[in-house]
């Protein structure tokens, strides 16, 4: 079992380093093959080249801990998109997921870190209510034709059942501060993009006509 949970932890490190690695070649290197080679080289360096006894990925793990299952899904999608121009998660599903993460995080983190006697993090130990809510959201998504989202929501529950991460708390399988920060940045980005898209749409309208 420990091999399994280590596997998921290491996968998180690999993905985090790989996503960071795609930032540089992704924006500078246009050629797809060169971009993949660049990311692979940076990934190998990050995973195996020690700095003061620890690799870059281990240093990252020291700072951010293990990534949640949903972060792994989002990061895998980012990688697939940046390296192979392929999205296995529909943009509407991804946006819904990130909106939920943003809203949950805005309530969850202040309460969990001190704001009130109520600690929502406690709900993640030996949980009953949380899995039921998650399954209901999943069923709702399935019926609403967001089948990718419906399936992805179940991954953290299955991983939690199998104890694939160090944590015994379901929240840590669902979200982490890295995903929350990413989701907030995504929301801010989409707020700024909306007027631009709207303007593009308005400008494009006469031509279409």
């Amino acid at each position, binding site marked *: 079992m420990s091999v399994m949970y280590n596997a998921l932890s290491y996968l998180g490190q690999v993905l985090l380093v790989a996503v960071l690695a795609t930032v540089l070649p992704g924006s500078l290197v246009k050629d797809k093959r060169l971009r993949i080679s660049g990311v692979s080289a940076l990934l190998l360096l990050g995973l195996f080249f020690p700095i003061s*006894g*620890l690799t870059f990925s*281990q*240093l990252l*793990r*020291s*700072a*951010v*801990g293990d990534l949640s299952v949903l972060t792994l899904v989002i990061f895998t999608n980012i990688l697939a998109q940046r390296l192979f121009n392929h999205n296995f998660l529909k943009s509407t599903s991804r946006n819904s997921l990130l909106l939920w993460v943003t809203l949950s995080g805005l309530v*969850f*983190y202040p309460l*969990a*870190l*001190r*704001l*009130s*006697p*109520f*600690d929502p*993090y*406690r709900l993640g*130990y*030996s*949980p*009953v209510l949380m*899995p*039921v809510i*998650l*399954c209901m959201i*999943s*069923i709702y998504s*399935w019926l609403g034709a967001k*089948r990718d989202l*419906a*399936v992805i929501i*179940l991954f953290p*529950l*299955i991983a*939690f*059942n199998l104890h694939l991460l*160090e*944590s*015994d*708390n379901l*929240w*840590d399988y669902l*979200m*982490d*501060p890295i995903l929350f920060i990413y989701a907030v940045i995504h929301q801010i980005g989409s707020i700024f993009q909306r007027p631009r898209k709207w303007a593009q749409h308005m400008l494009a309208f006469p031509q279409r006509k």
Partner: protein
Amino acid sequence: MLIKNFTLTLKTAGYLLLLLTAIMPLLYRNLPPKAAPEFLLDNTTSLNRSQASMTMSYACKDCLAPSVHAANVIEKLDGGLFATWFGGSSEGDKDVALWGADLSRDSQSWSMPRRIIGPAETQAALGRYIKTVGNSVLVRGKQGELWLYYVTVSMGGWAGSSLNAILSLDDGKSWDAPRRLISSPFFNISTLNKNPAVYYSNDTIDLPVYHEFIGKFAELLLINNAGRVVDKARITHGRHSIQPVVLPIGPQQALALMRYTGPTSGRILASRSDDSGQSWSKVKRLALPNPNSAITGLRRPDGSLLLVFNDTESERNSLALAVSRDDGRSWHTVKNFEKSGDTNSQFSYPYLIRCADGTMHLLYTWNRKRIRHIAFNDNFVDGSMP
């Protein structure tokens, strides 16, 4: 059309299977909700009414480290004691490690300190950068195994700390590889321990912990006999209460006493639970002073409570013992273990246990140079009785 329908049915069946795989094990494990366990109270033994006695020694006099702090102690299976503390150049430095020593039951003398674990060993086992180690608490497991829960810091100061656990199956002679406890959703930082665990009737323990990041507040971590966190409860919230000591006063009643870290003149803080530590009352200030320093205490078999604390307004140059016979509502200072006119003297981080023979053992930091050990009995507390 037929193929399309068949594919859709297959997808739905697959989804339903996934849904059941996700939810059923959790419902099976966690339903119906388990009743709150009861505290284990020492009501079986009577008070030790032998002649009043108190002996003073050092758990480490020559500590092999320039600075030592935050000792804790546990009764060994052979009736001796085992204590651990952290020591190094100075608190928070990279060379700080956990040290331990044994008190032989026969010779009543402490062994030379030995290194238990440090940042390097923890880093190698966890695959993470570890800057330093800190407070530790020893806990006896159901099968007699010994757990050591200790603090490590990867980045920043104590606010960036996490809890780790190591297990010994030979009463502290050797230890297995450390494992990290996940107790906070925010990068798992800012959980520290200080005081003894509280035992429940269902073999779980409550480990009193506290946070020092955005807020400074006290919590309980419910840990099962495999050393895994299964629940947590918030004792306080806000910014001024840390290092709780939890004293069970009934099967489901407990009193938590805490160090005050606020800016005004400090008093020891108290909160109560009537549901086995699941929920806690609003914090009250006791009359006892607290110069932003750690406290400790225990419950005796007759129900009286003992508290060891710095009985000063701003310094740590006096260490006193107080007794309460009304479940912590009123306290009376009965003894002073230390009282120095030199305000630079520091007697801090007390840790108090009661052994099976009724002897109580107090360990504390003595001027950051040594770990003082005081053993005393019930008549030392109550005055000599015939």
